[in-house]
């Protein structure tokens, strides 16, 4: 379970962020001591830090620089300041990503996942597996000993999103965001159609109930 440290001075946002992250399957901690923020961040052993630039009395960018000197921990700058100058500065001081408030929670989670994947040693380049099938996203196929399932780009994106969160419910919102992020600007109907086609293909290959629908919540890959 990945641990995320929240460095943010607005209490309401802290609480909601904590809930959001924990629901998404992370452990979330909130920084309490702004006087000794650097020490607390280094001690926390978090896998990722969400750092707000604008905390009064604390220079977010300076803090980032100091942390970067000591440790490679991934940091996403989260802020209401929307200028290009701030973003460039943050990135040059070593932030892994920069996101402005109010952020769409689904997009925030997507960005966190991307940064964690980038920095995680263990998940690198391994071919993903599903019930004996090899997932080859470049070719768009799930291949096994006797079977080969050919998926369209959309179906593959949906399948991989479900696979990465196997056993957890993935909302339609999350699937849509992922698809749009990959330049596939489909609408609600198209999503439904894609999912049933995916189901159909999996069923034909011997996995009839692979994707479960959770009413009003989303889908689940078993």
């Amino acid at each position: 379970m990945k641990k995320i440290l929240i460095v943010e001075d607005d209490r309401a946002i802290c609480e909601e962020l904590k809930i959001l992250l924990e629901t998404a399957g992370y452990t979330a901690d909130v920084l309490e001591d702004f006087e000794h923020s650097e020490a607390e961040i280094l001690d926390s052993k978090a896998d990722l830090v969400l750092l707000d630039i604008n905390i009064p009395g604390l220079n977010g960018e300076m803090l980032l620089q100091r942390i970067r000197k000591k440790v490679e921990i991934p940091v996403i700058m989260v802020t209401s300041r929307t200028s290009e100058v701030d973003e460039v500065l943050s990135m040059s001081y070593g932030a892994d990503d920069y996101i402005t408030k109010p952020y769409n929670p689904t997009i925030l989670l997507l960005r966190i996942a991307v940064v964690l994947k980038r920095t995680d040693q263990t998940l690198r380049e391994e071919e993903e597996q599903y019930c004996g099938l090899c997932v080859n996203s470049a070719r768009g196929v799930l291949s096994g000993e006797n079977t080969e399932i050919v998926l369209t780009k959309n179906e593959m994106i949906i399948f991989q999103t479900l696979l990465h969160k196997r056993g957890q419910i993935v909302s339609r919102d999350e699937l849509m965001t992922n698809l749009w992020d990959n330049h596939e600007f489909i609408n609600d109907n198209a999503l439904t159609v894609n999912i049933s086609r995916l189901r159909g293909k999996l069923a034909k290959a011997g996995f009839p109930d692979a994707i479960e629908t959770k009413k009003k919540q989303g889908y689940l890959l078993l």
Partner: protein
Amino acid sequence: MAACWLILMSGLLMLFQVNRSLRMILAISFCTMLVIGFLWDIIRKKRFYDEMEYNLSHIDQKYLVQEMISAPPFYEGTLFWQAMYECNKSMCEAVNDYKVSVEDFKNYVEMWVHEVKLPISSLELMLHNGEGISSAKYREQLRRLDQYTDQVLYYVRSGHTENDFLLQKIDLQKVIIKTALKYREDLLLHQIDFKMEHIGQTVMTDGKWLEFILGQIVWNSIKYQSETDSYICFFTEEDEQKVILNIYDNGIGIPESDQKHVFKKSFTGENGRKYAKSTGMGLYIVKKLCDNLGHRVEIQSEQGKYTNVRILFAKNDHFFREGTS
């Protein structure tokens, strides 16, 4: 002056060989005239400077001092007077510019507050009406609120004295995707198809400003969409001097008579009045931001058929210096 007369008279005297005592009398008279002349000059200069000093120390609006005293009668005074007048005039004009811009801002804020209260009221009503309202509807109102906060921020940034933008090489496609993701829910809610042709160009611009600009244009397309089969399409054209980003929608379009005026302040025009959804500031701010960044923005439209907004990014410095509208 007096010296000239003195020389002239000496010359004449010598010429006419007038008798000695007359010469003495004339010489003394001229010396006296000279002294009186100097004294008089000093007195009138002192009078002027005293008057000026007095008035300066007694009035608060010191730039009005020239109205309070009369123009100096001596030559150097006139030079000084003229210079003072010109300095004051140019400063007053500069101050007036600021006054006008503050007035404008006040008007904008009034209008803005009125607009921003709309989604707030909607939310209050929704919460009151309680269960059964989908969260999508709440989120729509929240996005509207966020839109307005962005708008006021960029209104301030578009002022001609503001220069806090950073020009960098920006991947157009990335900015468009960000915009698409931001408006995804609104587009889907209004059943508008989002299309983007493959766009490989990078341009020199401020990424955040461009995101806002594209957002405003998309927002307009949503407001003025066609009744059925609505879509919005992003595509580019390119030549040696420029890259042109086109944002095309098949919405209700803009009447010919209004097309020349869409970038003006508080312009609402036919569509706004008919459809009652506009503060008229969106495109004004877009134009100002583009002006600051050195991009040209154009709009093409046919009422009832389409609207195409074109943003022209120059590839080199000189292109848009000529013929900037």
